[in-house]
């Protein structure tokens, strides 16, 4: 066994790397209009498919658009989709999980069986079908991803609620005559918030991956709006002559998802007393 401090250091390096990436990507997305050297849809028709240079840092695409600028704006799309989709799934999962764990009995049974059913769905198939039918756009993607990914949160919150409902402060709140919804949202939820936020962090990573996969298949964010997924789709058709189009947007996806995963997983490890010892 290595010393505890060395272990701690390794975890912290991963945690801070994740945090740094997340912050950096968020800042890049927020300040995209300021940072981008060109507007994302500006055509430079005399500079089509140019490799990276001092003028176009990451090269240009088939229409002579600056890849770096488009990636900055694509980051906005990915993060926005990630945040909203996770907002939806966490809200659904939290409410259902709280109700399920707090009231028990048949409500619990019904909700947990619904979770089981949803988990058996080949969900990417369903997302694909629904998106294709509803016409692919950002709003639909966020809603569909949110509606198909709340099950983990529901199970987690239920487990928390199951143990918290037996605690003294909940009994005290009941004795004080507080209504159930108040106990749920004011007394139980705040105590279950840390694991929920961590799951949300990991969920953002997952949602970004699903969004970029959909966009890559042409069923996600539609051009001319840039997203990392649809940039890669466009890059695939010219992969032989302009490989940079297939490389950089994917790097951005990898880095962002990695950042959120590192942040979430290492925070979880820190909070988990079994691993911490």
């Amino acid at each position, binding site marked *: 066994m290595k010393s505890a401090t060395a272990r701690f250091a390794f975890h912290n390096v991963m945690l801070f790397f994740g945090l740094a990436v997340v912050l950096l990507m968020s800042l890049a997305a927020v300040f995209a209009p300021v940072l981008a050297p060109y507007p994302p849809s500006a055509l430079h028709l005399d500079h089509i498919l140019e490799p990276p240079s001092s003028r176009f840092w990451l090269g240009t695409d088939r229409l002579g658009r600056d890849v770096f600028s488009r990636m900055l704006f694509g980051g906005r799309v990915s993060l926005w989709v990630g945040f909203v989709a996770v907002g939806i799934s966490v809200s659904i999962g939290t409410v259902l999980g709280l109700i399920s764990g707090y009231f028990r009995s048949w409500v619990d049974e019904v909700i947990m069986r619904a979770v089981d*059913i949803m988990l058996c769905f080949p969900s990417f*198939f369903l997302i*694909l079908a629904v998106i294709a039918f509803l*016409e692919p756009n950002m709003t639909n993607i966020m809603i569909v991803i949110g509606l198909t990914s709340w099950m983990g949160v529901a199970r987690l919150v239920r487990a928390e609620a199951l143990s918290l409902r037996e605690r003294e402060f909940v009994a005290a709140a009941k004795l004080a005559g507080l209504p159930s919804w108040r106990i749920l949202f004011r007394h139980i939820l705040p105590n279950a918030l840390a694991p929920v936020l961590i799951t949300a962090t990991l969920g953002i990573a997952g949602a970004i991956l699903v969004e970029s*996969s959909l966009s890559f*298949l042409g069923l996600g964010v539609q051009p001319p709006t840039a997203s990392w997924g649809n940039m890669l789709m466009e890059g695939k058709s010219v*992969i032989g002559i302009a*490989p940079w189009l297939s490389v950089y947007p994917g790097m951005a*996806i990898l880095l962002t998802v*990695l950042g959120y995963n590192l942040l979430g997983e290492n925070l979880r490890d820190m909070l988990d007393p079994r691993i911490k010892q």
Partner: protein
Amino acid sequence: MRNKVFFRGRFLNIVLRILKKTLWMTLVLMGITVISFFVIHLAPGSPTDTETTLNPLAGEAARRQLEALYGLDRPLHAQYLDWVVRLLHFDFGNSMSADARPVLTKIAERLPLTVGVNLLSLALVLVIAIPLGIVTACRQNSLLDRATTVFVFLGFAMPSFWLALLLMLFCGIEHQWLPVSGLTSLNFSELGFWEQCADVAQHLILPVIIYTVGGLAGMSRYMRACMLEVLHQDYILTAKAKGLPRHVVIVRHAVRNALLPVITLLGLSIPGLIGGSVIIESIFALPGLGQLFYAAVMARDYTMIMGNLVLGAVLTLAGNLLADICYGLADPRIRSFGGECE
């Protein structure tokens, strides 16, 4: 004598468990079909679109005729009941695309490739991930463990389609080691049998690598976590205290217990594999289930989409059931206590 009764009881228990589980799974399957059917039919667009709206020569009458042909003019619940009744006879209906062939035939043509590639990579994942998980758990915080952790996080974050593009770029375009598209070469029919096999194998190397990398991260991480959990148990301490050699403790006492949860994970990983095949098959132009589904979605081919969704759900449920049975057979605690561990 006592043994016999014990075995009969155990057998009964397992049968009861399976029956209960099957009943529940039938209900789940019903739930899935209801949700999918209504979502798909209520969403805008219709399988008749390609032949009517997009065709200036076809008028409203032609559309209505087509809808009557497919039974789409009837109330939705009647359509659903019809579909279920046919499903009970294993009749998934005919595809609503131009060729109008039975859904089941079309799926059967595509299934072997997708399932084969997935099974092959699943086997590779197990062969690599399980030893890796064991070693990294036994040498927690060693250099190997750290390197694996970094690799695992990269694997989790790697979009499969990007990895596919990179491999295509490196192995297919830069070095021309491997073909990057399709299942066979252009001169396939002129080759001898063994050359044909080699040709297909060459085309499948990149897809299999990508599936494998996709599953490797999760599986090795999970194996490591299970192993760590088992290593902290009292019976491991007992085994060590008895003075058993380290490898006996690890192989006989720890690994056998740590493998159990992995069985469950295998069952749960099926929906992900099916979903992933859509992306990977579309990149490499492999004629598998994923491509079939993608085309069906684009053409609003209701019967085909439903067929695929049902198949996906059945595979998932079957995987879960199989995992459950294997778990029951493998874990002596569940074996002897029977139904108590439901």
